[in-house]
């Protein structure tokens, strides 16, 4: 699912989920971020707590997605993906430890 995309079924789903006592996280999305030519794309992504971010590394180089505050560090081996389940709300600047000129940000809503 693309960042910022809406889900028409959300209202009904959330309601039934609540009534059934199931966590809303059952509705969590997976958001892909491409890593090509030493760039995160898109560089700014909005998501919600419970969503999964999946970085798809198309480069023949290893990269990382590392939170600036040190909260998380996801290895992205060459031509492989790495993912992270978002647990905290807030805005997180992140970068690549191997190429600190690679920078991006995640905005996580509660």
């Amino acid at each position, binding site marked *: 699912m693309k960042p910022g995309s809406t889900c028409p079924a959300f209202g009904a789903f959330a309601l039934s989920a609540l009534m059934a006592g199931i966590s809303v996280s059952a509705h969590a999305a997976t958001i892909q971020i491409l890593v090509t*030519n*030493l*760039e995160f794309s898109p560089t700014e992504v909005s998501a919600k707590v419970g969503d999964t971010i999946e970085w798809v590394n198309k480069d*023949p*180089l*290893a990269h990382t997605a590392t939170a600036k505050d040190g909260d998380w560090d996801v290895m992205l081996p060459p031509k492989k993906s790495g993912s992270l389940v978002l647990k905290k709300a807030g805005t997180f600047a992140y970068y*690549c430890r191997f*190429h*600190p000129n690679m920078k991006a940000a995640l905005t996580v809503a509660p």
Partner: protein
Amino acid sequence: MFIRLSAAIAAITLLSSPALAQGAKLTDPQIAHIAYTAGVIDIAAAKQALAKTHNKEVKAFAEDMVRDHEAVNKQALDLVKKLKVTPEDNDTSKTLSKNAADERTKLSKLNGAAFDKAYVENEVAYHKAVDSALETQLIPSASNAELKSLLQTGLKIFQGHEQHAEHVLATLNQSVGHHK
């Protein structure tokens, strides 16, 4: 200081080497050779560091250099094969290789923290020099679009390594402050 100075001289020599100074347009086979040589040099420096260092951060940095430059040079070889270009040795490549060999000789005489600092300082200076050569000479001179694009990616990698090296240098300087 001696090492820092020699790195600076290496940087200047790279930029003012005959082929570049005369403003003679480099050919794609020459550009490919220079870019490939720049990677080979950094791999050799990293291998020397891996054999000598006991510092975890320096070791990790050197491993990153070997991995990245081997990956990029493999791409470069694939590209020249595809384009049927034979990389051509030239004055700039020769100067680069000679300076790098001299630097390795100097570094071979150092050990421990002195080696670590000199290696990482040279990495910062070397990456800066290559960034500048890529930006001002190699990329503008490249004729083939695919070669140009590989050089542009190479520039981002070298810039990334420069920042990474600066970060490692900052931690080395900090730990020197703490222990001495």
